[in-house]
């Protein structure tokens, strides 16, 4: 059985433009605007996103902890952004799957940061991972691993 990721391509070494990715990932995506997710930084094949704490995003009003699903949305978006930041040539990026491990509850009242990286880029498939945390990725609240399908529209479809 041959792995899919056998045509390794270079991850773009040009520093992705924060303003361009911000436009794609933030302004272009209504949910991200609604959640007030901010693209804080970006570099070749990775970046940081911040989700500001808000009471209407909690899972249980008693303890005020953010819902797991909010962190899922953040990690999903961060992994997709990392793939876009890795691409040399533009492509449509579709999430195939995303695994989330919930390591501990987020702390009530605190913003959550997601640090994502695309750690393997092939012609058709990209692999990304991300950690969600408050202070340091060394002390994460959740981790994610995802696979993404790349489709280049300028290639003839077959």
């Amino acid at each position: 059985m041959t792995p899919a990721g056998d045509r390794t391509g270079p991850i773009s070494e040009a520093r992705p433009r924060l303003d361009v990715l911000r436009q794609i990932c933030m302004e272009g995506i209504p949910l991200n605007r609604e959640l007030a997710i901010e693209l804080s930084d970006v570099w070749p094949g990775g970046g940081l996103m911040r989700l500001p704490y808000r009471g209407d995003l909690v899972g249980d009003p008693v303890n005020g902890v953010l819902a797991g699903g909010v962190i899922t949305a953040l990690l999903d978006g961060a992994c997709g952004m990392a793939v876009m930041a890795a691409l040399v040539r533009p492509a449509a990026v579709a999430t195939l799957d995303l695994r989330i491990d919930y390591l501990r509850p987020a702390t009530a009242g605190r913003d959550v940061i997601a640090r994502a990286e695309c750690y393997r880029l092939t012609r058709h498939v990209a692999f990304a991972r991300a950690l969600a945390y408050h202070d340091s990725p060394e002390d994460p609240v959740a981790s994610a691993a995802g696979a993404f399908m790349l489709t280049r529209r300028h290639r003839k479809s077959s």
Partner: protein
Amino acid sequence: MSPSGASDAERDRDVTSTRWAQRVEEARRASDPGMLVAGIPYARFLGISAEVVDGELLGRMRYADRLVGNPVLPALHGGTVGALLEITGLMTVLWNVDGTGVPRIINLTIDYLRSAATEDVLAQGFVTKQGRRVVNVFVRAWQRDREKPVASANAHFLVGLPEIEGSGEE
């Protein structure tokens, strides 16, 4: 990780557990899982509800513009469908597994099967493994055609823990 943080979390969870136990009892008596979902602010934010239809627990996410992830296609944001799958999975555990302790999610893997159109999404969960400590739930989400799921998820929950546990590390 600090001792004070841990004891806060401890106290919070005990309060949460008691509240949950009461709510689960009430919702079961009323055969209305929607009562539980309505208590989750993020579910309200996303327009997610739950109901029992013909004996089946169904989750539903009502379409709203804020749920869009790709305005060009247009398609719903995967993260919103993921949240519906997760909440429906939790409800499935609460509805099918005895005991009123709060199920705690360990992990889930979401498979995105089709682009989700800008309309309502429904979801249903199935318990695929019920251990003493761990329950495994498979959840499927669809729009008009149940046979054409837009996404599915496989989730593990930790259950069967006492309401109030002695503290203890590791």
